[in-house]
């Protein structure tokens, strides 16, 4: 006689969301299910045989699971998979597409600090750090991960509304021949040529050049 079992609809939209290589698996609950659905997660390294369970994401009712630690080697690529269960029913395992931390992460804007003299502005840019397991762990700048990393810098004269754009590889920029006693606003973006990755622009940092003595 046929074996009767009820299956649950599958979790949907299973994917990695990654910022500065903090790699978090996200999904949506199976359609039509309210509360009470639980999930378990596993992951695998592409090219290596086995699936590995993530104990901290077993029997969870949230719809995300942080796999940053398990996917921190960005020379590898990964798959992850989620299964839902409710009242003895369970779904299929639903997989992500192949995840490449190097090309599939998003990058935060750089940190911007500015100072001024009478006729110039000095800008110092700092690239964000790669995600790390703990504050004690050694920091790795994304500059080390992406050797081709550059900065696009925008400088706006608040009085004349004139804007300049600079594209630099160095992390400092001095903008000379400015008007004394004038407010300028600076914003910067990270641009990686290969793989092609762009951060958003940072929020504006405004500063006034010193008045003429």
């Amino acid at each position: 006689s046929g074996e009767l079992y009820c299956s649950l609809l599958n979790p949907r939209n299973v994917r990695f969301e990654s910022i500065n290589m903090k790699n978090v698996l996200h999904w949506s609950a199976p359609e039509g299910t309210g509360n009470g659905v639980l999930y378990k997660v596993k992951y695998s390294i592409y090219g290596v045989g086995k699936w590995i369970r993530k104990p901290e994401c077993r029997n969870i009712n949230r719809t995300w699971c942080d796999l940053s630690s398990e996917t921190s080697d960005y020379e590898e690529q990964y798959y992850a998979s989620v299964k839902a269960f409710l009242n003895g029913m369970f779904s299929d395992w639903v997989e992500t597409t192949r995840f490449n931390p190097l090309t599939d992460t998003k990058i935060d804007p750089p940190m911007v600090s500015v100072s001024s003299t009478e006729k110039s502005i000095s800008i110092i840019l700092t690239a964000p750090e790669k995600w790390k397991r703990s504050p004690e762990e050694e920091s790795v700048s994304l500059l080390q991960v992406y050797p081709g990393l550059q900065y696009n810098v925008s400088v706006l004269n608040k009085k004349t509304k004139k804007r300049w754009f600079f594209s630099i590889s160095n992390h400092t920029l001095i903008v000379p021949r400015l008007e004394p006693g004038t407010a300028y606003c600076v914003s910067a973006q990270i641009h990686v040529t290969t793989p092609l990755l762009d951060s958003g622009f940072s929020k504006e940092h405004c500063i006034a050049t010193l008045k003429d003595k």
Partner: protein
Amino acid sequence: SVAEIRAGFAAIKANIQARDPIRTHSILSHPRSLHKVKSSDRCCITHHLFDFYVDKVFKHCKTEDSYVNRKISSIANSFLSVRRKLGQCHEQNQCMCGQESTEKFKQILANYEGLNVTSAAMKSLGELDILLDWMEKSR
């Protein structure tokens, strides 16, 4: 150029990788990662790999999707031009092949021949970002 290859691949990556159901087998990255190759052997491995893709892979990568096919042929053309430049290095003896690169390339061919030709070609094409990441990192 490599940037053109990267852009072309990014446009079809999800499509191509979805055609490769085999998670447990990699052509380029296992059992030994390209990233473990000594710097002295990089030019030779790169030259071998461009030959491998031009001579073995692209011709077996036909799909039913004309857009994907166009992208594949433009990637193949970019490979041809980069291979030409690599060939010049090879002729000027700037691309010496050590034992390690010979062993590594043998492993890649063995991985490739471990699958039927269509699966192997599609898998190799889906691993282009592994090749590009390694090339750019080791520049």
